[in-house]
């Protein structure tokens, strides 16, 4: 089966299922007769479904970009200090200007996310080139250090409850109409990346190849950085960080389709949407009418998938020579 139609049908099926599952007991088919049902559907179910789809798609695309930027398959926007950077920016503007308008907060979060992601890029440039596995380790630790700064500041300023929703595993239960629309920005940013797909594909081949092909790597790096940061900042502020999506989805898709990003980016976006939506649905069903956050489920599922990716080919044990 070809990936694109298969994923599209899976996504449509999941979206329909998502519209029918929730704490309130309504029938979707009644929506046209029952104003109550229509309200639930339009104000809660539909926004929630859309926010999950947008988050999954945008984070997965951001994952492809960050992997191309650092030329390493084992990183994602959640392990590059990006999410913590966004939280730091939000904290800063909340403290400095509590009454600041939303658009300014989003800009602050995006810019700050850009700065910390650039810091991550600077750090890994100084690592030994051949040590592939050190890059994700450095990213995880840098995220941890930045996270402890966020926690510290949050503690000092009594803003811990916000910090909790930003950096704890994300969930969609709070999404209603009017509280998720920022995610469309993330979706648009991810969509923009598709127009530069070839450039990112070339960037992933390394500086020498990129320069040889006449690509201005610095400009492409800046574009990628901007998209990753904006996507992550929007997701973090709206629903909280969803772990591992941006890491495993690009890997899984690349295994099947390779790295021709122009062809694979739409598949990546669809696959990310399907994965997150499936986890969100599972979270809604497993202890119904309570919920397990999608981020918690993805923490488990994503970690298992990541371990599998790490070990799928047993490390070729070099036969001792001679």
């Amino acid at each position, binding site marked *: 089966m070809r990936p694109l139609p298969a994923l599209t049908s899976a996504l449509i099926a999941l979206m329909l299922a998502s519209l029918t599952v929730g704490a309130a007991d309504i029938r979707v088919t009644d929506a046209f007769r029952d104003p109550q049902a229509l309200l639930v559907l339009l104000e809660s179910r539909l926004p929630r479904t859309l926010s999950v789809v947008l988050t999954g798609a945008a984070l997965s695309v951001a994952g492809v970009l960050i992997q191309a930027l650092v030329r390493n398959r084992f990183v994602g926007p959640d392990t590059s200090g990006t999410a913590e950077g966004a939280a730091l920016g939000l904290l800063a503007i909340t403290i400095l200007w509590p009454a600041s308008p939303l658009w300014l907060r989003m800009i602050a979060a995006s810019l700050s996310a850009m700065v910390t992601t650039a810091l991550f890029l600077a750090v890994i440039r100084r690592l030994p080139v051949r040590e592939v596995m050190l890059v994700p380790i450095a990213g995880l630790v840098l995220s941890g250090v930045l996270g402890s*700064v966020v926690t510290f500041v949050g*503690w000092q300023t009594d803003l811990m409850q916000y910090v909790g929703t930003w950096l704890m595993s994300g969930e969609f239960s709070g999404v209603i109409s009017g509280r998720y629309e920022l995610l469309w920005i993330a979706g648009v940013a991810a969509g923009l990346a598709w127009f530069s797909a070839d450039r990112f594909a070339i960037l992933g081949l390394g500086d020498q190849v990129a320069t040889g092909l006449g690509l201005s790597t610095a400009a492409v790096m800046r574009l990628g950085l901007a998209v990753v940061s904006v996507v992550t900042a929007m997701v973090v502020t709206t629903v909280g960080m969803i772990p591992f999506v941006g890491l495993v989805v690009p890997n899984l898709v690349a295994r099947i389709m390779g790295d021709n990003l122009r062809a694979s980016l739409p598949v990546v976006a669809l696959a990310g949407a399907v994965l997150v939506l499936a986890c969100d649905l599972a979270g809604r069903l497993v202890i119904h009418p309570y919920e397990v956050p999608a981020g918690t489920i993805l923490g488990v599922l994503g970690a298992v998938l990541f371990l599998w990716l790490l070990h799928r080919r047993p490390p070729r044990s070099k036969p001792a020579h001679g």
Partner: protein
Amino acid sequence: MLGAMALLLAGLSAVWMLQGIGGGNRGFILGLRGTKLAALVTVATAIGVATILFQTVASNRVLTPSIMGFDALYVLLQTGLVVVLGGAGLAGLPPGPKFLSEIAVMTVLASLLFGTLLLRGARDVPRMILTGVILGVLFRSLSGFLGRILDPNEFAVVQSVSFASFNRVDATLLPWAAAITAAAVLAAWRLSARLDVLALGRDPAVSLGLAHRGMVLGVLGLVAVLVSVSTALVGPVPFFGLIVAGLAHGLMRSARHAALLPAAALSAAILLVGGQWLFERQLGQAATLSVVVEFAGGLFFLYLLLKGRIR
């Protein structure tokens, strides 16, 4: 050197116990402070010794058991036992025996899991480390998941898993924790000559006649015991051990475990007692020491990484 460190610790402890003492309920205050001091010293010893032991087994100077997911495994085990056995079973035991049985299960599990990882992963160290880190994430997520299922409204599980605090110590566990730590440290001390050989790496150790596999599993068992103690008392502290082990190596300028183990325990105790005194009494911020310690430890880790010291 060790003597000077012991003196410094004694001095700090005296200040901790006696500062501003006076007035009516002197006995009460002394008791409260004494408990906290004992807890800090126990945790410090456990973390310091566990880190040195783990670095020796892993032949790696930038790792700590917590970075590799030991503490997350213990937390998962705690949650998992409640799920499997329910409130009536193990969870209904008095804290001491419950703690002991948790540690016993943890020791077996951790030696098997991390023994396999270390013994098989020796050829590709960074991959092994990454596997450990992700295992830690997996264990933490699983605990969070189980916690949610146990009690959907209860966020406390997730909270306590995520933040360490040197400030809230379970006093009922303290005597058990101290006794277990003492036993484990004594065992490590008795092994110190063998640990010196183990630190040479696998090939030389085998050549010198050390039963390498058994030694690795045994030491990992000790690490599991010590990490269980510190996690039960204060929660996860991934990078503190790194600072302590770095200090011990730097101060001792020797690879002998007979010197390294006490040095690590002492420097950890000095940092914790001194740090807690500074933050609690001077800055009035009892809760933030763990955050500051972790921040500094994380930076130190990145520094080591960039200096190419990961292998």
